[in-house]
């Protein structure tokens, strides 16, 4: 069933692409003076993308196979202190998949008693400090931009993790409030 769903999503993406191509063709027929500019940029961006996309996908595949969810839960569950924060960043930067894949994982970790700061940092690292992602940023925005944003993000994400934990514990003990229903079956499978 899951397979069918992704297949349907894939069809949708291709249909969307066809639709936009049609709009592009019509627009460029009405404004022929823009044709060269459009063709040149499309070709340029396509070449830049296709030159790194296979490599990025290989890396994503490697991370997803070699770094399992079980390992993430095991290492992050017992991490603490400054070392814990660094482990959370490192673990978040390795696995792949969109952010919503990380939510059930974080719910399991909360239930297992991991620090809130570690979980927030892990989620944030998962969202925007992933290695394959950084490589694409390097390609399109350059080393200066990528490195500076990476450093600033790490600093602020750590500050955010610590503040969220403070704010959560300030407001009473309901720290695993919403996980009761959601994380249950994942917990059993891990």
């Amino acid at each position: 069933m899951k397979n069918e769903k992704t297949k349907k999503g894939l069809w949708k993406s291709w249909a969307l692409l066809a639709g936009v191509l049609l709009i592009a063709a019509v627009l460029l027929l009405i404004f022929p003076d823009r044709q060269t500019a459009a063709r040149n940029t499309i070709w340029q961006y396509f070449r830049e993308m296709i030159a790194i996309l296979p490599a990025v996908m290989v890396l994503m595949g490697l991370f997803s196979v070699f770094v399992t969810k079980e390992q993430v839960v095991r290492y992050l569950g017992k991490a603490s202190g400054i070392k814990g924060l660094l482990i959370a960043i490192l673990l978040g930067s390795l696995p792949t998949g969109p952010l919503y894949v990380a939510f059930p994982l974080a719910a399991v970790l909360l239930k297992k008693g991991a620090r809130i700061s570690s979980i927030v940092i892990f989620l944030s690292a998962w969202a925007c400090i992933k290695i394959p992602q950084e490589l694409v940023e390097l390609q399109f925005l350059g080393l200066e931009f990528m490195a500076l944003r990476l450093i600033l993000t790490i600093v602020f994400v750590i500050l955010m993790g610590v503040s969220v934990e403070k704010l959560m514990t300030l407001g009473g003990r309901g720290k695993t409030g919403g996980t009761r229903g959601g994380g249950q079956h994942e917990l059993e499978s891990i």
Partner: protein
Amino acid sequence: MSITVIFINLFALFCLVFAMIKDRAKAKQALIVGLKSFVQILPTVLLIVVIIGLFLAFAPPARVAQFMGKQAGLAGILVISVVGAVLHIPALTSFPLAASLLQKGASVAAVAAFITTLTMVGMVTLPLEIKELGIKLTLLRNVLSFVIAILIALLMGVIL
């Protein structure tokens, strides 16, 4: 071919060879996973490339600068942060999009804000996050992520 392209491909090749030596079966499996993700993301990547082509060919630079350039100031950064938070596209495709915005005259700060909220704040996935992590943690995380995205953007604008 640029140094970046060579570096990225060599890095991937190095990791692949290392994985092959460590565990052949797993490395093969990783390649299949990678191929599947490639097929899956390809139409979206092509879509973004075409949209960038149209954007660069048609959008008047003066307009882009007006909304996302230096003179747009904090208001411009705020608007593009909201756009980034609401948009739900793969992070990988946000970087070429950001590059095209820069090329058209958007400021570094605006582009940094856009990428950061796009990846860290998820309006579309909010219900799922609330279900898994609870409403309090979810709101705190998303609101603070939005705030730090703007701080990161402002700092980047000052430094770069």
